[in-house]
């Protein structure tokens, strides 16, 4: 029997982390002053119980012992024997943190830091030994101890007399006496005599009752406990006596008592003793640590069976279409052109659906990222003494797993920022005529092939004047005259900018909003600010739904076709000559309402020939990246379509201004423009326009 338990570890880690999320969310929602919903306690208990069960099976002893304490306390709460105090809630929350650290270590095959659990263990043990009364004893006998009892020293054969008188309903629990006898047979020499005395009159006979009893003689090396264990499951439904048949018959007689009571105590213990693998309960964990650090477990994704079924259906349709087309191709003539064309349409449809559904497999609800916020807000509001109500909407909005993982930290920073800098203290809020409790709203929704995540607070808003003077003081900009409020807000994303009066523990962790914006940009997204002094702020993050597929605008410059990510496009327009201004040297800007947008000639940036060197009536695609807007001068706007992103780095290397490539419908390759990269490139060229870029 060689089942490698390690193959189940990754799933166990993942489900345990999910269970910890369940525990944490439920704990955060609990209001200890009010009546606690028993289903909430149940779900917490189940989650802890599940982690304990799995960790025991897979040999993570430390986790088992620790979760056992949590489980014991939760069990008492569930049974109404213990009150759920805020102290217990806090300890349980901290235990979630501790277990997360442990699971990270286990995943990385690193030894566990048992120091972090010690204070919590102390709290739990104090609780269990103190007020709980009988709970201490309970822990004792429930504790999972790998007892290594010396196995019975008796190895010589002994003969046992077993009287087995089952109650008539024994069959109703699926316990057939014959199965018990088969086990006894395996233990040694077996002889059973059935006693038919209690069979009733044939008229009273029913098929599902057992009327027989047996006298069994078993000669075996096994001892009494082993024999009792065979009857473990039926002990409550039978009369059982097990006596040793020895030469000193009288002595035996004396011992022949109803073992029922005695045996009842034994099962668990006997079980531990009998299985030769009992000791390894501890050992696997040790062996595990010594094992050479294998490659890190590949991350996996749990996919709803409905999504998989959908895919299977779609593949089924694809196969049908394919066989239809290949049959058509076998003896094709021009009469069948219509069928060919409809077959190809069908193929197109199948492919599109298949693509969409495959992408959907990687999609997870954003609740995975949002779920950590209630806990965070709870901890933070306690820490800085601000009252904050968190409202979450759109948590079922789906997002690519990789995007989700990468957006999680920036979101945390934005939420921390909202509490720290946005929400005022209770006194200030009351003075401003606002409710004492501040509100932070998290929202996620789909918009035009992208996902938008909003972090809204009803705090004090951003004061443009404060930002402006701070930015000048920090040397982020030399002068803010003539800048719009919006442009001033954007300065908070510049490196080296931090508005906190003193670097606080909450948001001033050395990384600032510049890192937030950089991470969002790296995902092909962007961030906007809306703020009104005294009313609050909105931070709006736009992200692509996936990193593998992009909604693109195809454009033509000279003979080349490029793709601009739709998410970056603000608008496309035809140039009106009167709105073009020469700024300095070769730099031209376009007046777009209140903005002056620098014009970037794509042909110059990419060194290609263009149709027309002038500007009049040509097309300008206004894009936004890196917080600034620029207009890209192009020869033609072509179709908008979804493209599959392929890396150029697979066989080449990164190219400035290009984020990747894709294959168009005609099989040709088109480059995807990296808007922030292009803007940087162009900005570097401008001061010394006419020279080679580095």
């Amino acid at each position, binding site marked *: 029997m060689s089942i490698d338990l390690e193959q189940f570890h990754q799933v166990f880690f993942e489900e345990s982390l999910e269970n910890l999320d369940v525990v944490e969310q439920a704990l955060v929602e609990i209001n200890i002053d009010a009546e606690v919903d028993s289903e909430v306690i149940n779900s917490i208990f189940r989650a802890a119980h599940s982690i304990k069960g799995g960790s025991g099976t897979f040999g993570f002893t430390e986790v088992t012992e620790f979760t056992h304490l949590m489980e014991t306390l939760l069990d008492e709460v569930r049974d109404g024997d213990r009150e759920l105090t805020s102290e217990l809630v806090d300890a349980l929350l901290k235990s979630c943190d501790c277990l997360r650290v442990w699971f990270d270590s286990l995943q990385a095959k690193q030894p566990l830091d048992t120091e972090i659990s010690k204070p919590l263990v102390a709290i739990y043990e104090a609780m269990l030994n103190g007020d709980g009364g009988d709970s201490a004893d309970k822990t004792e006998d429930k504790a999972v101890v790998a007892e290594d009892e010396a196995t019975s020293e008796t190895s010589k054969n002994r003969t046992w007399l077993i009287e087995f008188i089952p109650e008539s309903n024994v069959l109703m629990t699926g316990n057939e006496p014959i199965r018990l006898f088969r086990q006894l047979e395996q233990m040694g020499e077996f002889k059973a005599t059935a006693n038919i005395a209690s069979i009733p009159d044939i008229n009273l006979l029913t098929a599902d009752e057992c009327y027989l009893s047996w006298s069994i003689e078993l000669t075996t090396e096994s001892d009494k406990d082993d024999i009792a264990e065979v009857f473990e499951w039926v002990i409550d439904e039978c009369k059982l006596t097990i006596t040793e048949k020895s030469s000193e018959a009288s002595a035996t007689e004396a011992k022949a008592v109803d073992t029922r009571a005695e045996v009842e105590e034994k099962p668990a213990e006997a079980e531990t003793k009998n299985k030769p693998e009992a000791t390894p309960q501890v050992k696997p964990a040790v062996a595990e640590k010594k094992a050479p650090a294998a490659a890190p477990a590949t991350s996996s994704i749990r996919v709803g069976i409905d999504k998989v079924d959908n895919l299977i259906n779609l593949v089924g349709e694809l196969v049908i279409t394919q066989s239809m087309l290949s049959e058509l191709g076998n003896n094709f003539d021009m009469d069948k052109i219509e069928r060919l064309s409809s077959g190809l349409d069908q193929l197109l449809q199948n492919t599109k659906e298949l693509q969409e559904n495959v992408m959907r497999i990687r999609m997870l609800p954003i609740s995975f990222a949002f779920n950590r916020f209630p806990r965070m807000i709870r901890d933070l509001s306690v820490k800085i003494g601000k009252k904050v109500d968190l409202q979450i909407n759109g948590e079922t909005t789906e997002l690519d797993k990789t995007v989700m993982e990468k957006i999680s930290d920036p979101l945390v920073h934005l939420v921390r920022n909202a509490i720290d800098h946005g929400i005022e203290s209770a006194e200030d809020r009351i003075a401003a005529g606002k409710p004492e409790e501040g509100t932070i709203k998290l929202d996620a929704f789909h918009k035009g092939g992208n996902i938008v995540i909003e972090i809204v607070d009803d705090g004090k808003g951003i004061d443009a004047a404060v930002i402006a003077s701070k930015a000048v003081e920090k040397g982020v900009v030399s002068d803010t005259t003539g800048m719009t409020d919006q442009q001033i807000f954007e300065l908070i994303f510049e490196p080296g900018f931090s508005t906190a009066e003193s670097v606080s523990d909450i948001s001033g962790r050395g990384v600032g909003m510049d890192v937030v914006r950089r991470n969002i940009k790296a995902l092909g997204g962007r961030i906007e600010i809306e703020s009104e002094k005294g009313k609050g702020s909105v931070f709006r993050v736009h992200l692509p739904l996936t990193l593998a597929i992009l909604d693109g605008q195809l454009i033509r410059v000279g003979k*080349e076709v490029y793709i601009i990510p739709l998410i970056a496009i603000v608008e496309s327009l035809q140039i009106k000559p009167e709105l073009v201004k020469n700024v300095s040297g070769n730099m031209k800007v376009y007046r777009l309402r209140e903005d002056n947008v620098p014009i970037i000639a794509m042909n*110059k*940036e*990419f*060194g*290609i020939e263009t149709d027309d060197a002038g500007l009049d009536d040509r097309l300008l695609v206004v894009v936004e990246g890196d917080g600034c807007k620029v207009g890209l001068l192009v020869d033609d706007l072509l179709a908008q379509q979804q493209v599959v992103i*392929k*890396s*150029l780095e*697979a*066989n*080449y*290397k990164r*190219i*400035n*201004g*290009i984020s990747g*490539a894709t*294959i168009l419908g005609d*099989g*040709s*390759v*088109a*480059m995807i423009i990296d808007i922030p990269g292009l803007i940087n490139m162009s900005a570097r060229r401008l001061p010394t326009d*006419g*020279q*080679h*870029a580095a």
Partner: protein
Amino acid sequence: MSDPTNEYLTFILDNEEFGVSILAVQEIRVWSTVTDMPNTPDYIKGVINLRGVIVPIVDLRQRLNKSPIEYNENTVVIVLKQAIEDKSIIVGVVVDAVSDVYNFSSKDIKESPDFGSEIDNRFVHGMATTDEKIIVILDAVKLLDVKELYQISGSLNKIAS
């Protein structure tokens, strides 16, 4: 006799014959239109779609500092594939024409004399002589190593001013 490890595909560049291990050759294609990659050296002609894989195309004449010629219907692209640092790299090289396949044992391949500045020595594995011809054997691993292949060696960037 036909141990593929000793087989070399030879091709013509500017009337000289070059060889590359046949194990590195994935396929031979005729020249087809490429998509330009902006701001790349002159010898990189662009990329093609090779059954879903984006493959850069390098003009080997230009890469080896020989004078470029117009492509015609004989112009072929040898698609080379090598595992470099656990990664499989595919690059197409443009040559004037494909010549032959020869068998050379390792002792047939002599250390190459210094070509001076004419040919970039870093790609040369050695020299082999056959039928009174001298064949320059190129090192496929170095030829496909991104660090070597795309290192700018005096070749002008084609960034327009």
